[in-house]
C-alpha cells in the first residue's frame, strides 16, 4: 500500500474536501494505484539534476510602478455569493 485510508482522510482535510465513506474507499484505491504507477520515477537517478519549475524560464518580469485602472469595488464584489456592497461576508471566525 502506497497510501492508507487515514492518509487520504488527512489530505482531504488539508485540501478542504469532505469525502463520503464510499468516496474515501474509492479514492484510496485509485490514489494507491496512481502512486504505485508514478513510483517508476525511482528507477531514474536524479542526483544533482536541477528541478524544472517553468518550461521557459525568464527572470523577473517587472513593469513600471504606475497606478492603472482596476476593478471597481462593485465589480469585484459582483460574483460573491454573500456580500454587503462593501465586504465579502464569511461565517463568524472568532
Amino acid at each position, binding site marked *: 500500500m502506497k497510501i492508507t485510508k487515514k492518509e487520504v482522510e488527512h489530505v482531504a482535510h488539508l485540501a478542504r474536501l469532505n469525502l463520503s465513506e464510499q*468516496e474515501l474507499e474509492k479514492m484510496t484505491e485509485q490514489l494507491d494505484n496512481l502512486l504505485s504507477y508514478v513510483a517508476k520515477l525511482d528507477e531514474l537517478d536524479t542526483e544533482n539534476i*536541477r*528541478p524544472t519549475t517553468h518550461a521557459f524560464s525568464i527572470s523577473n518580469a517587472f513593469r513600471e510602478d504606475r497606478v492603472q485602472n482596476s476593478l471597481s469595488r462593485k465589480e469585484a464584489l*459582483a460574483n460573491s455569493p454573500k456580500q454587503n456592497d462593501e465586504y465579502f461576508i464569511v461565517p463568524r471566525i472568532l
Partner: protein
Amino acid sequence: MHPYELTICQALEKLGSGELSSRELTLSCLDRITAVDDRIKAFIRVDPDHALAMADRADARKGSGALCGIPVSIKDLLCTKGIATTCGSKILENFIPPYNAAVIDKLENEGAVILGKTSMDEFAMGSTSETCAFKVPENPWKKGYVAGGSSGGSAASVAACECLASLGSDTGGSIRQPASLCGIVGMKPTYGRVSRYGLIAYASSLDQVGPFARDVRDCALMMNVLAGYDSKDSTSVRIEKPDYTKSLIKGMKGMRVGVPREYFGEGLDPEVEGAVKNGITLLREAGAEIVDVSLPHTDYCVAVYYLIAPAEASSNLARYDGVHYGHRDMSADSLIDMYKESRSAGFGAEVKRRILLGTYALSSGYYDAYYKKASQVRTIIMNDFKKAFEICDVLISPVAPTPAWKFGATGDDPLAMYLSDIFSISANLAGIPGISVPGGFSREGLPIGIQLQGPHFKEEVLFKVAYNIEQCLDIYNKRPVL
C-alpha cells in the same frame, strides 16, 4: 455551399468583396448550431444577440481587422466579460467574469464574432470531455464516440461547421488530441507565446492557449492574432512573432524530420501507425530528410505529468473557497465547514482526485519524493528534446495512440485514461509547440491526426510541415455528414 462551411480565408474574401456580410455568416452559423448542436453538444452557452451585435459592428468596420466578421467559439475557461464562464464546473456555474481574457480582447480587436462558450472537461481535467458538469460533446464523425478532451466542445464545434474557428487550451494535449479525434487542425503554441491572462488556471507551468481551425492556413491566421507579449502575464515572452502564413510553402527540401522511435511501440493502433508512416513518406517525397531520433525518457512522461499537473492544480484550485466567487454552501456555520461543503458540492470526482493527489505530492514529508523528483525528471525530458532538435528540425509522431473511442470506454480507471496522453504531454513538460494535422481516416471513418513538435518558438516550422502534409493528402475539404 453554405456560408458556415467556409474556411476563414474563403469567408474573408467574400466579406471583403461584399458578397457576404458578417450578419449573414453569423446567422448561418447560428442556424447550423440550432440544427446540429442537440447531437454535437459542443456549446454550453450560445449568445445569439451578443454575436449578432458583434457581427453588425464588424460589418460597420468594413473589413478592418485580421478576423473581421469571422464567427468563432471559445472554450468555457477563457474569461469573457459579461458572459458566464463555467470551466465546465458546477462550482463556477454562475460566474460572470468582470474582464476579458487577453486573447478575447485580441479577437475582438480584430473584429471576430464570438458565438458562445464550448463544453470541456471540468477544469480541463480529462481526455474525453466526459467530466463536464453540463454537456458532453460528441464526435461529429460518429455517433456514440467521444470528441476528445479537454477542449472537446471547441474541436467538435469547428469540425461540425458550427463556427469557423475556436480557442482552446492545452495542458497535456487538450488542443491537439481533440483536434486529432475530430479531424481538424489544432495548435499548442510554445509556453509563453500566447498570453494566459484570463485563462482559468489548471496547471500554470503547463497551460497554454491555442487555436482550432479547419485547415492549416486558418490556424496560422488565428496564431497571427493570438501570439505576442502581454505585460499582464508574467510568463509571457517578449520575442518577435513572424507572419505565420508566410511559412505555408510547398516543398520540404533542406528540412530534417525526426521520427522518435519510442513513439512507435506497443499500444499504438496499427491504423494510427499507418497514417503517421504515410505522412512520413509524403514528407520524404516532398524532399525532407527523415532522421531516426530517440526520446529515451518518453516512458516517464505520464508519471511526471500526473504529479506536476495535480500539484499545481491543488494550489490553483484552492481559490474556490465560496467567498469571492463560485458556489457556496449557505448552511455551514463555521468557516472551515463552509469551505469544505462548498468545495465538495462544487467539484466533480476527477477534480477531487487530482486535488487530493496534488495535495499529497506537495505535503510535508512527501514533497521531495514526488513533486521534486518529478520536476527533476522533467529536466531530463527537456534535455531529451534539446538533443533531438540538434539533429532534426521537427518531430513527427501520433497525437493519440488510437482514433476516437466510445463514451464510457475508459470507465472508472483513471490510470488507463491518463496513459492515453502519452504522446501529447511531453510537449507541455518541455514547453515546446505542437500541432495536430489530419492524417487520414480509420476503416470505421474516424479521423486520425499527425503530431508535429518543434523547438521553442518555432511555430512557423510546424505550420510549414503541417501545410505540406495537408496539401499532399488533400483530405482537408472532407467534412462529417450530419
